[in-house]
Every structure is written in C-alpha cells, then in structure tokens.
C-alpha cells in the first residue's frame, strides 16, 4: 500500500481493535453522565426568546419559591470581564466578546439566567417562573448587510480582540483580510475561459450522539473539578478561569469517554455554567444539554457565502483564482477569524501546479443569530464546494474531462503552494488517488449520465480535496511514556479520543517504538492535573503532532532504560542496546530484563524511567483525497440517492487501517448529509426551524448506497512513521461531487445547500433535458 515507505511495521499500519472497543460495544458506564453522581444539583439555562434585546428586569422570586430551588443567577451576579469560549491556543484569534450572562441578549437562545435546583423537575418549574422583561431591539439577521450596519451586535466598550485579525466591533466585523499573489488582473485578462460562481453553505450541526454535558464538584483541596465531554481539556481550564475570574491553578479538568465531537466540543459550550454554580454554591452540579439546545445554541458550522472566479487558458491550464468569502459568525466570534481562512487556503491550494495569481479576501461578520464554532473541515468544505464546482464547470465549458483538468492542474509533490503559507507539498499522492478512483468507479466506461428507468437517471460527479495536519507553529502535542512495574509502558496524553481512536493509535506508536505488544501498553487521558500539555484534539492534529511527541518520548525513554540497564550489567552505556524485552550487551552475552530494570527503578534509584516529550510542527502537510459519486435522481420527484461513493485518500502512512477507513466512511456520510438533507433555516424572528433530529435530518443507514474507499499513501517525512491526518479531510468532497452529478443529470449547477428534492426538481425543469418524458 505505502509505496514510498521503506519499512515494514509490526504494529503501526495494522487494523488493531480499539483499546476501549469492548467497553463501548457492551454499553459500560464510561461517559460523563454515567461516571458522575445522579443526585447532584441540576443546572438549566433560561434562554432568550428574542434575537436582540436588553433585559430591563428579572424577577426571580417566584422561581426561588419552587421547592428544591437552589439558585437563580442573572447578569447582575457574574464577572464583568469578557472572554471567548473558542477552544484555541492563547492568545485566541476569536475576540473576547462573551460574558457568562449579559444584560444584552444577542440571539434566540442566548442564556438569560442560570438555574440550579435539587431535581430536574424543580429546575424545569423554575425555568417557567423566572419573569424577564425585555426591551426588544432591532436585530441584524441578514449576514449580507451586517458589515458596517448601524445596528451593532457588540456595542460594548469592554469588547477586546487579542490578535490582529481585522476585527472591529464598531463595524460588526469578526475578521477581515486581503491576501494576494501575482498579477491577478493581467492573468485573468490572458485567460480564455473564466467561470464565476457563488455558493451558499448553511450552519450545519455536528449532531454528535452525546449532547454537551459537564459535571462539576469541589475537590479535597477546595479546587474546582470539571468533568466534561470535551476535546480540549487545557483550553477548558483557561476559559473557565477567564469566565469565573479564578486562577487556573484552582481548576482541574478531566474528560471521560466522549460521545462524538466533530469540533462541537472544541468550544466551551456547557462547561462555564455548572462551573459557576459549583464555585458559588460549593455543591456538585451537572448540566446536560437537550438535543434542542444542541440544535439552536451550540457551535455549528459557519454559514458562508463563497464567491469564486477561476480563469484558464484554452488548453485548460488554471492560471488565476479570485475568492471572496463572507462568513456568518453569529452573535459571538468563536472560531470566526480562523474557519474562514480554510475556505481559501484549502481550496485554492488544490491547484498550485499551473496557478500564476490568486486573491483571497474575506469578511466575517457578527449577526443576531446563533453563534458558530468548529465543525470537521473548519471552513474547507465551504471553499472546496465553490472551487470544485467552478473547476467542474470550467472543464465542461472547455470540453475536457473533469479528470483531465485535474491532471493538468492539481497540486503535485514538490509544488510550492503559494496560497498555503508558501509550504511545499512534501508528500502528495493526489495523482495516484485520482487514477485509482477513476478506475474504481469506471469513470471513462459510461457517459456521465445514463438512464436507469423511465423516471430515474444515474449521474457521476467528482471532486478533490485537501486539509491540514495540525496548526503549524501553534499546536502543541505532548506525551509521557514510562516503564511500568511489570515491564510494560504507560502512555499519558492530553489529547482527547472522541471516538476517533487516538488513544489506540498513539499506543500503537508506543508498541512499535518499544518493540512490545499492544497489551503491554496502557493509556491514560486526559486530565489537566496529570497529562502533559496538549492543545487538544482538533485541527486534524493528534496523529500528526502528538504522534511525533510519542515517537520522541519513546526514543528518549529507551536511552534512560539503557542507562539503568547498563549500570545493572556493569557495562558502559555505549556497550548496551535496547531490545524488545531487555537491555543487552552488544554481543548479546549479557542481558537484564525490562521487568528487572523496572524493579530496580523502584529501589535506590535516582533517575525516573519516564519521559515527557513535546512537539510542534512548523508545517501542516495536507492529506489529499478524491471523491467520485454515482447519484440516482428521480426526475419526477427530484429525489436524489447516492448509490455508490468511491473515495481514495492519501493521509500518508495509515497508522490503523480500520480506524482510518471508518473516518473516511463516516466523513463521507456526514458530507452526504450536508449535501442532501441537513438544513438550518432562520425564521423571521431569528429562531431556527430545525430544532430537533426530527427536523434536522442526518443520514440513516437507509440513505447510503455503497461506499467504496481505499488509501493511496504518500510518505510524509515530518510525520510519525510518515503519517498525516485523516479526520477532517473526509467531509470535503461529497458536496461538490454531488453538485457535479446533479449538473450532469439536469444541466443546472446548484449552489445553495442542501440540495433538496424541491431544488433538484426545479433544476430538472430549468435544465429542460427531460421535456419529452
């Protein structure tokens, strides 16, 4: 599989079962709400019914009269220093624009009061009895008119932006940037074919099966212990510290198993509220979000409108790209300044091979709508939808195949990618991915659109994609590896396995490095008191960044083990070597087992057999993939069904084939949901129509035809064992590939998500291809 990899690995690359798998499939109590007490205070949030209003009065008396009532906190009770709930490395690019509770409410669902009660029933009764008077204000509900609108979402004086991202609360601006390279006007003037396109992506929800939830208690030392379903324990610690105005040293954050995240839990959505209740009352408390709260007041994808202009010469060389992205951050700035960047950096950069000029400008705006956050892909799916649709249309207009236009233009190994921080594509098997995908789906075998029966047509579509591997020069991954008493290894990390399997993947790396079995490695994660610092599991960073830390920690630990072993063998250190289960003399005549060394390390020893290594990468090498779809469209009803999805991905060395495959399959299905079903509709009052899983339709197993995925690996020299990332890349291709297939079937390019039967039927009629039917 891995053609460039020189070495056959023993544990790495193998489809090893996840260390926690059997606990999960047998339904053991391992999640936040299972492992924390049921008889603690119940925390609920009273939410604003208005998109924009000032609270003029809150009467809490009747609520406090409910039997079992413990507390009602309002904006009068909370610290007045603003902070952000975006889980990012300090100083966060997201502006400090939040308070725990604010007198000004900024979207339908913004918290108005924190309620604590002895029981759920009492808390719910209290919610109904808090009387709030509002001065309702006009709201900014259209993100097109938000910038420089006279209505301000954040008029307050203590709003702060810590980073130069072009934010300005007096202009409703969360971020603004202009970036370009080459002579754009001149290059476009020389192009014989130019395609312009504007696409609109919605604020999709992660819809992880476990909603947000946090339990808090005061520990033996009077510190606040936060147990939460989070991807980012260390960022949670800082953000809770900011929100409560207490030192970080007073806070400990741990995470049990996480029931899915997909970026949702890279924001501090729930933690601050029970943390405040417990800190105030000194009593254990818990907040479990309802599904409705998850749908209306959480951390969804940024709604974006992406305008792109792509120019090529008559031979199909793509020479110029111009992109403008307008991103809707909603009421708060979480992840607004950063997600938008990927809409250009991960799309324009797919075509570095022939490109001579590009421009990428963007605005991110505040509106009085739900605040957005991080969601798998992090802006890339929006930009890739635009660019890939434009490139498919360009190929169509030039009369060359969509595969051929990629072969001419796509980024290849060794290309310097100007639009990607000038990084060089050090590992790129995109060409092989394209070749393989084309063969698998039989791209050239049939026309791109064929008739299945008198009312169904089958069309093919394709797209290519890239993502990153961690945030270069920012993300920090760490690992502690120590020799255990029985001669095995304990790995302690601060990264968060949210189902992805990083605990197992990193343990595989330990087993590979230390020449032991998987059963010899235990993993502990994650706890701010015990884990070495890790920025957390996001930005496709864990395998690539933390993996490298594991590799280094293992090498250093081998040296330490050898030093102690040499002493026990009474040999100089340079005359011994580390072997799987022992330290041996060079000639193999003398040996001391790891168990003996471990035992010795606990008696009269002054050197810990434990190493913590920390890694950060100056680059973020992209994984790449090709997605090709066969889509059945009912031309009478407009219904679309993916019958076959072929995907071939280059994530560098595949560390665990099973887990990588599930990432690939799961991401594609999420992408199909984004393309065909998942809608977020804002009503006139700013509320959201799709507030349950009944209305927000995620794909079921009946909605998916065949998924046919495989890996075509490159070898990334800067990654552990040649690995890059896989987690986010996988969601990027379905939207443009399906849009392409719809075009092949109907003759119309759909540009607004999701592609509902109504829109497809309209396209069928507008395209006029089936008038005789």
């Amino acid at each position, binding site marked *: 599989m891995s053609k460039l990899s020189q070495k056959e690995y023993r544990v790495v690359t193998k489809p090893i*079962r996840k260390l926690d798998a059997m606990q999960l*499939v047998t339904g053991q109590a391992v999640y936040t709400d299972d492992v924390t007490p049921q008889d603690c205070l119940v925390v609920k949030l009273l939410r604003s019914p208005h998109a924009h209003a000032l609270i003029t009065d809150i009467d809490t008396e009747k609520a406090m009269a409910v039997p079992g009532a413990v507390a009602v906190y309002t904006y009068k009770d909370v610290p007045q220093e603003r902070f952000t709930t975006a889980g990012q490395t300090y100083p966060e690019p997201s502006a400090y624009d939040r308070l725990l509770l604010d007198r000004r409410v900024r979207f339908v669902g913004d918290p108005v009061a924190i309620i604590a009660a002895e029981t759920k029933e009492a808390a719910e009764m209290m919610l109904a009895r808090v009387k709030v008077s509002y001065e309702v204000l006009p709201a900014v509900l259209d993100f097109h008119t938000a910038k420089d609108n006279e209505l301000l979402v954040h008029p307050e004086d203590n709003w702060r932006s810590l980073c130069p991202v072009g934010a300005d609360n007096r202009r409703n601006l969360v971020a603004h940037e202009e970036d370009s390279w080459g002579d754009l006007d001149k290059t476009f003037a020389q192009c014989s074919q130019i395609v312009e396109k504007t696409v609109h992506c919605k604020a999709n929800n992660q819809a*992880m*099966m476990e909603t947000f939830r946090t339990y808090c208690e005061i520990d033996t030392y009077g510190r606040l212990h936060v147990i939460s379903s989070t991807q980012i324990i260390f960022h949670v610690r800082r953000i809770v510290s900011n929100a409560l105005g207490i030192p970080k040293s007073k806070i400990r954050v741990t995470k049990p198993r996480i029931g899915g995240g997909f970026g949702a839990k890279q924001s501090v959505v729930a933690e601050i509220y029970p943390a405040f209740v417990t800190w105030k009352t000194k009593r254990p408390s818990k907040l479990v979000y309802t599904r409705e709260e998850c749908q209306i007041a959480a951390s969804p994808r940024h709604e974006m409108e992406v305008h792109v202009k792509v120019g090529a010469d008559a031979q199909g060389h793509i020479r110029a790209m111009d992109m403008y992205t307008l991103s809707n951050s909603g009421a708060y700035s979480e992840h607004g300044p950063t997600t938008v960047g990927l809409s250009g950096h991960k799309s324009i950069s797919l075509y570095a091979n022939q490109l001579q000029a590009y421009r990428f400008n963007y605005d991110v705006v505040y509106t009085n709508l739900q605040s957005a956050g991080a969601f798998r892909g992090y802006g890339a799916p929006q930009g890739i939808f635009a660019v890939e649709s434009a490139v498919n249309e360009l190929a169509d207009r030039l009369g060359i195949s969509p595969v051929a236009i990629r072969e001419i233009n796509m980024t290849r190994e060794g290309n310097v990618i100007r639009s990607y921080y000038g990084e060089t594509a050090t590992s790129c098997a995109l060409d092989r991915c394209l070749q393989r995908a084309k063969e698998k789906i039989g791209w050239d075998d049939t026309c791109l659109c064929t008739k299945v029966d008198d009312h169904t047509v089958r069309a093919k579509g394709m797209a290519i994609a890239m993502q990153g591997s961690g945030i270069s020069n920012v993300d920090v991954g760490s690992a502690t590896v120590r020799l255990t008493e029985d001669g095995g290894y304990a790995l302690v990390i601060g990264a968060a396995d949210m189902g992805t399997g990083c605990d197992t993947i990193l343990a595989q790396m330990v087993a590979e490095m230390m020449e032991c079995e998987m059963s010899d490695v235990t993993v502990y994660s994650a706890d701010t008191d015990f884990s070495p610092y890790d920025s957390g599991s996001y930005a496709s960073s864990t395998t690539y960044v933390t993996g490298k830390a594991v590799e280094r920690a293992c090498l250093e630990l081998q040296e330490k083990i050898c030093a102690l072993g040499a002493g026990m063998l009474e040999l100089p250190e340079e005359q011994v070597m580390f072997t799987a289960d022992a330290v041996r003399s060079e000639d193999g005549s003398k040996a001391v087992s790891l168990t003996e060394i471990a035992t010795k390390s606990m008696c009269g020893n002054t050197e810990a057999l434990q190493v913590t290594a920390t890694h950060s990468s100056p680059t973020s090498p992209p994984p790449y993939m090709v997605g090709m779809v066969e889509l059945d469209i009912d031309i009478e009803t407009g219904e679309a069904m993916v019958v076959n999805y072929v995907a071939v991905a280059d994530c560098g060395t595949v560390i665990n084939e099973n887990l990588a495959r599930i990432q690939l*399959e799961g991401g594609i299905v999420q992408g199909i949901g984004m393309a065909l079903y998942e809608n977020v509709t804002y009503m006139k009052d700013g509320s959201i129509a799709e507030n349950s899983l009944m209305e927000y339709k995620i794909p079921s197993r009946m909605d998916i035809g065949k*998924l046919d995925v495989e890996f075509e690996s490159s070898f990334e020299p800067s990654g552990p064992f040649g690995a890059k990332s896989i987690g986010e890349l996988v969601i990027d291709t379905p939207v443009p590939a399906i849009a392409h297939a719809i075009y092949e079937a109907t003759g119309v390019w759909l540009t607004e998500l999701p592609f509902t039967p109504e829109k497809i039927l309209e396209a069928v009629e507008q395209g006029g291809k089936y008038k005789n039917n």
Partner: protein
Amino acid sequence: MELKFTLNEVPRVVEISADTLLLDLLRSMKCYSVKRGCETGNCGLCTVFVDERPVLSCSTLAARVEGRSVVTLEGLREEAEEYGAYIADEGAEQCGFCNPGLMMNAIALYRENPEATDDEIKEYLAGNLCRCSGYEGQLRGIRSYLEFKKGEVRHE
C-alpha cells in the same frame, strides 16, 4: 405510584411518578447503557427489550412495563461481547454512544432473522442513528457475526 417489573431477570419494585419515562427510570436504576440521544424518538439510542421486543424507552412510560420483563444491554453481557467483537474488529464502534441501542436492535435482528440480507439488516436497523461510522463498518461487522453464527449452527 408503585411499579413491579422484572429488570434483567431480577424482580423489582420501585416508586415512580405517573409521567416517569422508562429511560429515566432505567438510568436511575444504574442501567447506564441506556442513552438519550434526542427527545423525539429519532435516534434509537435508548432501545431496550420489553417482553423481548425492542422499544424506545424514551417514548415509553415506566408505568407501561408493570408486570413485564425489561432487558437492557446490562442483561445481555455475554451476547453483547460475542456480537460486539465483530463490530470492534471493524473499528465501527467509534465514539460508542450509539452502540448500546444498536446492539439491542442487532441482537433482536439476529433472534428474529438470523439469515438477514444486507438490505434487511439496513431496514431493521434504520432507526438506529450513528453520526461517526457512516454505517458501512457496522454492516460489515453484523454481516460477519451472522456468518459466524451460521457456521456455528452448521457445526452443531
């Protein structure tokens, strides 16, 4: 009000309210495998057996199980281990939060139709949502388990 029922083969008598949902009752009785994923009967995470038939415990009043037998995954440990190993070998458990509800229905499927085709598997489990796996790995695991059980029957 008083409720008498059998939970995982043990007779139980508990005090409930008229509006207590079976899901909340079971979690309060430490059956933590039973999960809530939505409030609208869409996700299948809370599936348990009532008199051997899979039901959504989020949409069942606890009072409805008076005199009946309720089984959660806690009561099917051995079967879950044997079956679940096939899901685990595909890496398809992923975050695991949907697993208990899936396993309940997958066990019900096996008991009802041990020779289920892929289409029958998909249809039977259509009400079990999973946001991580993309379903293909679960299908592979279930298919392998059914194959394994067929072989077992042949060898008997």
